[in-house]
């Protein structure tokens, strides 16, 4: 059997068929067997039915990107083959119940009667464990590890259910092993790095954990895919951590609550997607005017309007960059991967508190719905120091200062009074129509940009420092860009990736000067980040790879498109 570096397993079926159960189990199983793993899903906007698929990559070294390639496909319903037809190649091994999925003539499927075996054990619901067992057998894992993991996975269920699932997985395992031993099908792969200390988390979990680590103690949100995850997760842990988690009547309420909460001493966030964020924009402007800290998580999906609710895109950068009437400072972070989602979310709270500005964390459906193993999160990597001051009787909320930052007091802490106003205001927060004071206040607010820019995250250069071709990306395309460059493996090419997209670190300008050719990669239709680079640094990029069909970039398409673009004159 040929040794692989990474195997891609795809499960496909209707919503509600148990794909997620198999996925969750296999992730645990492979991780406990010592393999780096990765899983991402694409699904339709419905509760039952449709065609949904999950891709699991089992690899020798950590991977964190979507691939088109399917080494092993397990279709669970008749529509699955049609749904994934474009991705099926002669090398794709398909295991399924022929009777149930009725494959067309030209697609050959190895018949594995999951349901029949499950029914023999006592109930068709055990089919998922049969399927998991087959996969374990194909990879030559230890049967004892499989049954041990079944025990843990179904730990809360009755002993009979656990026993039946063990039987089902064992039967499946034997079938898989038989296929492997006879040389028909099987995978040979050995892990090169240790994963036992790693954690396996999704992007949504990383955002939520990062928020807690940043001292978040208040979340207000209206559910909207794919941004709902942090509301769900923080609500589930609200009592454990004594925090406030409230599902509100609309996004307008969410953002105004979050700002009210910061005013009274909480550390608050909202989470949403583009449409919900559009409703929040007046509140963003309020945060700008009253110099309120605010953390906004936006998981992007394709628009305009309702767009594709369960798909991915990097289409809301322009919206976030310009959201809110008037001019005021802001910070926009865009984590490149799951580890960064944790640390940047934590940092977002610190930045918001320190500079008294709205801080945006831009993710997308791809990142929040993807999970893989990452090194254990450390709480102390980002310093979190609350900035509230105890007021004195003569306290003035908007005292004019050289760096524009006025010490932030809160009501009920100290002997002073704290007044904030959405009107232009004087140092005490009272309405003013003094036009000279207006200018001073506007300058004070904008002055904060200097300090904010000085601490901006610098872009990261991936691979060669001696490059001629520079591939530029931002946010969640980091890992797919890295893997594509590894595959291309040419010394003259490097990638420059931005995890902070506003304000941009001034140092970034030099990277563009050194490049002969620059290629822009964005998951949107108009190259929004490219426009920002042009405005900021005067860089014009006409080699652009843009994707906006709702799917993330795959390694294969980026490899081929980068190679094409770099050879174009």
């Amino acid at each position: 059997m040929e040794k692989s570096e990474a195997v891609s397993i795809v499960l496909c079926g209707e919503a509600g068929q148990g794909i997620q159960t198999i996925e969750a189990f296999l992730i645990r199983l492979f991780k406990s067997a010592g393999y780096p793993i990765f899983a991402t899903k694409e699904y339709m906007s419905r509760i039952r039915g449709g065609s949904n698929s999950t891709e699991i990559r089992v690899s020798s070294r950590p991977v964190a990107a979507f691939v088109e390639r399917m080494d092993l496909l397990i279709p669970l319903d008749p529509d699955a083959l049609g749904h994934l037809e474009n991705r099926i190649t002669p090398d794709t091994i398909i295991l399924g119940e022929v009777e149930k999925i009725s494959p067309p003539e030209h697609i050959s499927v190895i018949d594995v009667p999951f349901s029949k075996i499950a029914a023999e054990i006592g109930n068709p619901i055990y089919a998922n464990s049969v399927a998991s067992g087959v996969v374990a057998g194909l990879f030559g894992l230890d049967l004892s590890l499989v049954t041990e993991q079944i025990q843990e996975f179904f730990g809360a269920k009755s002993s009979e259910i656990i026993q039946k699932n063990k039987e089902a997985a064992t039967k499946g395992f034997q079938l898989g092993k038989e296929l492997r031993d006879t040389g028909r099908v099987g995978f040979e792969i050995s892990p090169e790095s240790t994963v036992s200390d790693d954690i396996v988390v999704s992007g949504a979990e990383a955002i939520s954990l990062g928020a807690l680590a940043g001292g978040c103690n208040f979340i207000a949100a209206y559910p909207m895919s794919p941004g709902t995850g942090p509301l769900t997760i923080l609500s589930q842990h609200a009592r454990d951590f004594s925090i406030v988690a409230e599902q509100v009547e609309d996004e307008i309420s969410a953002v105004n609550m979050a700002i009210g909460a910061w005013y009274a001493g909480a550390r608050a966030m909202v989470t949403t997607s583009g449409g919900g964020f559009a409703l929040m924009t007046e509140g963003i402007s309020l945060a700008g005017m009253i110099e309120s800290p605010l953390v906004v998580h936006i998981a992007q999906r394709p628009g305009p309007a309702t767009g594709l609710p369960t798909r991915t895109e990097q289409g809301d950068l322009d919206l976030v960059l310009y959201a809110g009437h008037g001019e005021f400072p802001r910070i926009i972070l865009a984590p490149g991967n799951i580890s960064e989602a944790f640390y940047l979310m934590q940092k977002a709270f610190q930045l918001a508190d320190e500079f008294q500005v709205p801080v945006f964390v831009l993710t997308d459906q791809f990142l929040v719905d993807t999970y893989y193993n990452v090194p254990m999160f450390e709480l102390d990597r980002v310093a979190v120091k609350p900035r509230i001051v105890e007021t004195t009787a003569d306290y003035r909320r908007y005292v004019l200062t050289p760096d524009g930052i006025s010490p932030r007091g809160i009501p009920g802490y100290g002997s002073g009074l704290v007044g904030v106003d959405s009107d232009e205001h004087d140092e005490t927060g009272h309405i003013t129509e003094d036009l000279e004071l207006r200018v001073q206040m506007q300058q004070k607010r904008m002055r904060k940009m200097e300090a904010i820019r000085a601490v901006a995250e610098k872009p990261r250069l991936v691979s060669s420092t001696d490059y001629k071709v520079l591939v530029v990306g931002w946010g969640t395309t980091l890992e797919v860009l890295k893997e594509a460059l590894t595959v291309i493996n040419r010394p003259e090419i490097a990638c420059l990736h931005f995890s902070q997209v506003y304000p941009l670190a001034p140092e970034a300008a030099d990277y563009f000067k050194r490049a002969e050719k620059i290629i822009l990669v964005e998951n949107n239709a108009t190259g929004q980040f490219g426009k920002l680079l042009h405005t900021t640094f005067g860089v014009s990029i006409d080699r652009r790879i843009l994707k906006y069909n709702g799917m993330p970039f795959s390694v294969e398409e980026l490899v081929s498109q980068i190679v094409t673009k770099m050879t174009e004159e």
Partner: protein
Amino acid sequence: MGVELYRSEVTDISWCPGCGNFGILKLLKETLDELNIKPEELVMVSGIGQAAKTPHYLRCNFFNGLHGRALPAATAIKAANPTLTVIAESGDGDMYGEGGNHFMHTIRRNPNITNIVHNNMVYGLTKGQASPTSERGFKTPVQLYGVVNEPFNPIAVAIALDASFVARAYVGDGAQTKAILKQAITHRGYALVDLLQPCVTFNKHNTYQWFREHTYYLKDDYDPTNRVEAFARALETERLPLGVFYIHPKATFEDNLGMEDGQAEPLFRWKLDRAKLMEMITTKQ
């Protein structure tokens, strides 16, 4: 303490001479003084409009936010620090029009705050257009042939939503209004005071005289715990009843968040349980 304690440093008041807002401000200061609520313990939250400027003319902590959005901010302020007295005060356009959705859902949520709505049945700051509470037939520069929409009935809506405390007051009656404000502020839960006032500049119909002739007080034997009776009174429009329509004591938003009243630690004193967070992260191994 005396009402001097609440004298604002702002002297340039932007209300018209004779505006009902002056009366409301005076009564509010006296009420706060009589209740012994210190300016440092008070947060006034408002939206936009002439009524929404009230917090500037009263020495206190204040959050003068966006048009229609006082209630979400007030709810969050109370939740973040339950030791504060929180009053959300704005006009009828702000609370019942722009903020109508928050009005309904704040009643459902029942935070322990007081909601004072200056109701003069007209838009003042934007110069005389109809408000949600304007009567049918009321003519304005925009509603040239008179208002045709059904007037919003905040009292009936609040009772329909089982609000914890619902009252209507009239600024012309100082003693009665103060008594109502006192009850509202000390009520534990969401308390609505729909406070009738004339707009001397833009509403020549609902004048001081008109309010005298078109209101009456609920009698001493009126039972404010009877929701059906309260709703019936709320529907009266010939003469508007004044007083406390409805009281239903129940768990507040803060109670439901698991905060015990009085023992609640303000969130600015909250500390992350790092061990618990590490434990949560470790379960992902």
